[in-house]
């Protein structure tokens, strides 16, 4: 176990050093990524100036929701970049996944360190900026419990979206190409929960409640922290389901991942 952790660190170090070799390219990428996140939020913020609120959520409250997702998705994208389905599909296609099986190191650790997209740091940074805008625009009555719960909410989203990446990557054992439906769940899912869930039509909200329970990841914790009433009358435990959703998603996806590897070893794609 300790050996695995040290190796994880070393393999990550290799990734980081490789990327920093292309310094100019790296900073340009950082800039482009940061500006993308920035302008996307700016367009929403500017429009909210005209409309004042969206379904009763003020600019600050939306920034809180939005910033949380940007931070969590950025961290996930950084940590799980090796599992990015599009990227991992290439790995399977080129047969470089075989190299991973030939090294006496845990497979998951090796895939995690296939890539470490440092440019996501820009997404995380801008996300933190948006989050701070949110804090300033809202009057949150902080309690120790809320403060303590916040990192768990972020962690749950990291686990949840990381799990989706793992599922998407595993599917490429069968399909080779990453499949578009997974993009809807990952990128579509993160877009969806960046806004108050009350703005969506019922069918969409139910989908993200009962089939893919993303509503509990960000929206309900935000209702709790911002002391907003629940328009859907869920039991009072709803805001605290996030860690459960995150962990179960990740656990199931890792089980599927292991099954995928077994399948790969019996068919060899």
């Amino acid at each position, binding site marked *: 176990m300790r*050996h695995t952790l040290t190796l994880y660190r070393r393999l990550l170090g290799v990734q980081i050093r*490789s990327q920093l070799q292309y310094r100019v390219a790296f900073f340009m990428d950082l800039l482009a990524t940061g500006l993308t996140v920035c302008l996307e939020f700016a367009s929403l913020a500017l429009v909210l100036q005209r409309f004042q609120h969206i379904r009763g959520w003020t600019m600050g409250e939306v920034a809180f929701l939005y910033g949380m997702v940007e931070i969590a998705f950025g961290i996930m994208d950084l940590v799980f970049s090796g599992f990015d389905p599009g990227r991992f599909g290439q790995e399977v296609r080129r047969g470089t996944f075989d190299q991973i*099986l030939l090294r006496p190191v845990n497979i998951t650790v090796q895939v995690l360190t296939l890539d470490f997209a440092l440019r996501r740091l820009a997404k995380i940074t801008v996300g933190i900026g948006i989050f701070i805008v949110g804090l300033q625009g809202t009057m949150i009555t902080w309690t120790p419990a809320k403060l303590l719960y916040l990192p768990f909410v972020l962690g749950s989203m990291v686990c949840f979206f990381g799990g989706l990446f793992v599922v998407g990557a595993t599917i490429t054992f069968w399909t080779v190409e990453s499949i578009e439906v997974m993009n809807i769940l990952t990128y579509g899912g993160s877009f969806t929960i960046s806004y108050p869930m009350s703005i969506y039509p019922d069918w969409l909200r139910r989908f993200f409640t009962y089939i893919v329970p993303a509503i509990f990841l960000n929206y309900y914790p935000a209702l709790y922290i911002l002391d907003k009433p629940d328009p859907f009358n869920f039991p009072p435990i709803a805001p605290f389901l996030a860690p459960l959703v995150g962990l179960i998603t990740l656990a199931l996806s890792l089980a599927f991942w292991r099954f995928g590897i077994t399948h790969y070893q019996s068919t060899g794609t």
Partner: protein
Amino acid sequence: MIQVHNLHKHFKVTRHHQGRLAGVRNLLTREYRLVKAVDNVSFTIQTGELVGYLGPNGAGKSTTIKMLTGLLVPTGGDLVVNGRIPHQSRQQYVANIGVVFGQRTTLWWDLPVIESLELLQHVYRVPADRFRQNLSEFTDLLDLKPFLHTPVRSLSLGQRMRADLCAALLHDPALLFLDEPTIGLDVVAKERIRQFIQHVNRERGTTIILTTHDLQDVEKLCERVMIIDHGRLLFDGQLNDLRERFDGRRELLVDMAEAYEDVSVEGAQVVARDGWQVTYQFSRSSVTASELISRISQRYRIRDLAVREPDIEATIRRIYEERLLET
């Protein structure tokens, strides 16, 4: 070292519908075709052997190697390597083997060679002094020094191959798989790599399985060869045996002294005619060279002649083409 008994690997291949609405029909019904990539293969390899594993593309060569390295799980049969079943206990098994793919590198693309090697030291948990010892030995033998601090992406193919060989041997594997290690290299680079392979096998006692399309590799390195085609093991034995059994077809080149309409002779076939030069083919078992020469000279006036021995390449090509070994 390696015991393989009745090894099978079957793949189900989807047969796609053709023609109209093919896409829809593919979704609704699937037809499978069973491909026997490896079909009832058995062999044993002793510690310290250097075995050439040959076969045309798609013959089942790489499927066998994938099973031996634990990448693929066999459909049937027994497979014990180094006392372990490769696809079980993967981590422990691969810690004791080395694999080199000529077509792709195991090294980190953007890092200097030395950093990749140092990383592999930790991946394989090689003790520091052992690592230093091996590194200095391989650096000398493979002449790695000039490019040890160059990123892998800037290496020539030959340099990369040498670095990859070093990388595969740092942890003193008992068994080494080499897949096309000389592919795409020039003559000098090939020779250097062959010498190194021979050294590793002789001095370190490493068991080596070599797949290649370059039969010079085989001629220079291997005493024993295995030939696979259509998933079946066609030949397993000494290279000399292979020669003797199949080098029947020798060629006799004759320059006639005058033009003949009919140049046929008993016991040999005319395979080419170019002006007054005639090429005969004959097999060792039916007629000796001197016998044939005397028969020809009795009938025709000869100016010059030469006997051409078949090379291993022609032999093996003939084996593939004519399925000589099929029973």
